[in-house]
């Protein structure tokens, strides 16, 4: 790997995260306008930038006796893990930031580690509502983690590889979304849960006055929202690569296909916030274990039978 390629990979992933997170914010506003039956305003495009500016202008609030270091680390680590997860997803057959033999496991590890910053963001302020949000998220994480990993595992069976590049290549002719029909819904469920987005927003819900973000303001809050958007981008990119054939497709260049497929999944994920109500914590856990994990195991068995 040359030095130019090394720096280029880092810059490329950084750019993808920033652009992707901004697109998430724009898509969120656009879908909200459609749902609310309002005309599209110019603020849909410029709004996120203005919110970031507000975050820079606003002061940072604190509480009586917070765990300051852990609190400061939370949004930074969450955003960093999203970026690291995105880095293993190939943009095209030749363009990929980090070609790793066990890329799928690295992606899973980055997602698993993302539990920690969310917990810390709620634990650190020493305030009861964020604290409840933090513990809710651990329950949530323990429930979506298995469907997530099993859905990822199922795509590695036909490819006989844990490298995401090989997994995309294995979909030549037949995409995994057709071959493993249960995989993509399970993966998207886990993706929305990981970014606690929309119906899966248990830790930051309105019943907790914002939950883990209830005591935050200014740039901390902006970074937190950016981290969630980035996590959605990473998951959508992975979903496009693992289930929708990544760069494969006729006509357009590979990277364009990848971008299009990622955007489709991103719109699906972002839109879920405006059409589905937040689920109850306990029911989420029970349904995950009693229904989704058996389905995910079934999906792995289907993958085994299909791949044979």
């Amino acid at each position, binding site marked *: 790997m040359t030095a130019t390629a090394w720096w280029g990979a880092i810059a490329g992933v950084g750019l993808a995260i920033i652009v992707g997170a901004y697109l998430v914010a724009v898509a969120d506003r656009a879908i909200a306008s459609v749902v609310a039956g309002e005309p599209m305003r110019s603020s849909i495009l410029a709004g996120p930038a203005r919110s970031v500016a507000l975050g820079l202008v606003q*002061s*940072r609030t604190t509480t009586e006796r917070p765990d300051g270091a852990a609190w400061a*680390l939370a949004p930074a680590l969450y*955003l960093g893990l999203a970026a690291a997860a995105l880095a*293993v997803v190939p943009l095209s057959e030749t363009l990929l930031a*980090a070609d790793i033999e066990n890329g799928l496991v690295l992606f899973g590890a980055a997602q698993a580690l993302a539990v920690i910053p969310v917990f810390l963001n709620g634990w650190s302020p020493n*305030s009861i509502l964020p604290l409840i949000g933090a513990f809710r998220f651990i*329950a949530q994480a323990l429930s979506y983690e298995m469907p997530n990993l099993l859905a990822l595992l199922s795509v590695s069976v036909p490819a006989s590889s844990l490298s995401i590049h090989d997994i995309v290549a294995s979909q030549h002719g037949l995409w995994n979304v057709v071959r493993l029909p249960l995989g993509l819904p399970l993966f998207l469920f886990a993706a929305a849960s990981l970014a606690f987005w929309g119906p899966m927003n248990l830790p930051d819900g309105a019943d907790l006055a914002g939950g883990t973000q209830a005591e935050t303001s200014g740039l901390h809050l902006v970074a937190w929202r950016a981290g969630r958007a980035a996590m959605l981008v990473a998951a959508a990119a992975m979903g496009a690569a693992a289930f929708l054939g990544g760069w494969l497709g006729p006509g357009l260049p590979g990277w364009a296909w990848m971008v299009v497929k990622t955007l489709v999944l991103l719109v699906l994920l972002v839109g879920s916030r405006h059409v589905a109500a937040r689920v109850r914590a306990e029911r989420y856990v029970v349904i995950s274990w009693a229904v989704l994990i058996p389905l995910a195991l079934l999906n792995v068995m289907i993958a*085994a039978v299909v791949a044979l």
Partner: protein
Amino acid sequence: MVALAAFSVILAILGSSIALVLAGRWVAARADLPATAPERVPFSGGLPPEVHAWNRFHARYYVMALLFLTFDMEMVYMFPWAVVFRSEGTVAIGEIFVFISILALGILYAWRERSLGWS
């Protein structure tokens, strides 16, 4: 060493993201005045808290957490299985069916004991 170069990219991305956010946070807040005592009171709708929020928190899902702990470990075995599955053939499929059904029994037991919900 090719693999390590790829990992160094990931480490650099992770590290620089964290560093950038922390630096931005520090720069943005350096002009803030120190918060006054009422500004530091945790929010719960206007009244101050009686006690510290940090407590022996009764997480209602501790049985499910134990189930997860063991269930998670199965993934250690299943990723290598997925890699060699096609070269090993029917032996592999039989083995994984046994493995999965053993673990599914665990979920069945937990579900039957009603251990998945809030205790």
